[in-house]
Structures are given as C-alpha cells and as structure tokens.
C-alpha cells in the first residue's frame, strides 16, 4: 500500500520516518483485516458443516485476494488521477469533499 504515500518531501527526520512507517503498517494491517472480513463472508458459508476448508472454498479465497487487490489498485489509480486533474485546474464535479472535514 506504499504507493499511497507519494514522495518528494526532502530529508524527513527520524521521528517523521518512523511515523510514516507506522502509518504504512497500520494501513496494510487495516486493509488485511477488511480483506479477511469480506473474503470470509463471500467464500465461507456460515453453516460450518466441516472444520476443513474444502477445495471450492480454498479457490474462492485465493481469487478473492486477487480481486481485492485489483479493486484496491483501480480505486487508488482513479483517486490519484482525480487528484492530479484537480491540481491541474479542471476540478471535476466530485471527490475531495470528504477530506476537508
């Protein structure tokens, strides 16, 4: 998820670097928790007839991770694109509103 922290600031201090690494780890960890929540809901039926993952469930989980990453990339690209567009001048109709809170 490190792509979210666009670069360019000169020479961060120790405290800043540690804080940035901490934020990155929190972000990855939060994403993983959400992925677990979403993918177990989508792939593991809540009846729990057996303790083991069966073939179908295992394959579903693998694909779920793959698609979750795809969505993450798409959303990230879209938001960076819009941020760029806005900085460039032609502020699009949507977006941004929630960050100004």
């Amino acid at each position, binding site marked *: 998820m490190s792509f*979210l922290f666009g670069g360019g600031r000169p020479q961060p201090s120790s405290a800043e670097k540690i*804080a940035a690494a901490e*934020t990155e780890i*929190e*972000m990855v960890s*939060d*994403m993983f928790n*959400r992925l677990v*929540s*979403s993918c177990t809901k*989508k*792939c593991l039926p809540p009846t729990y007839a057996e303790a083991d993952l069966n073939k179908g469930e295992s*394959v*579903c989980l*693998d*694909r*779920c991770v*793959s*698609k*979750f990453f*795809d*969505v*993450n990339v*798409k*959303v990230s690209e*879209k*938001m960076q694109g*819009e941020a760029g567009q806005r900085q460039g001048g032609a502020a699009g*109709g*949507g*977006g*941004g*509103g*929630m*960050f*100004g*809170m």
Partner: protein
Amino acid sequence: MDGLNASEQRELAGRMEKKQMKEFMTMYSNLVQRCFDDCVTDFSSKSLLSREEGCVMRCVDKFLKGSERLGQRFQEQNAAMAQSGQLPGR
C-alpha cells in the same frame, strides 16, 4: 474550539494533521471495501470481469460525490445548530 489561544490552536492543529491523515486512510479503506463488497460477487475467475470493473468505477464516483454532498449538508446543519443555540454549547 473558540476558547483556545493562538499557541493552543497551533498545538491542536499539529495533532489534527495526524488524525486527518488517518481519517483519509479510513475513508479510502471504506471505499475499497464498500465497492468490493457491492460489485465483486463472481469468484469463477481470478481477475476482475469488465462489468465488475465498471461497477467499481461508478461506485467510487458515486460514493465520492455522495460523501461530498453529505459533507456540505452536514456542515450547514452543524453551523445552523451552533447559531440557533437550540442546544446550549459551551
């Protein structure tokens, strides 16, 4: 917040910056999870189907526009409530 002097406001602003970063992260993660949950329902393939991708793009757009609109109304209401003094503040 208006009871703070300049130095206190600076201190508060510093703390808020970190929180805003986190707030943005939470919003971003919510967006990813929401659009994933609503748009991706087929696990017979490993990659996003084009209809799923289209759905995700529209979901992001709609959700951002919705959040922006909600943010505007929220601030208006908040300001109106503070002014009217309907609910005694500080």
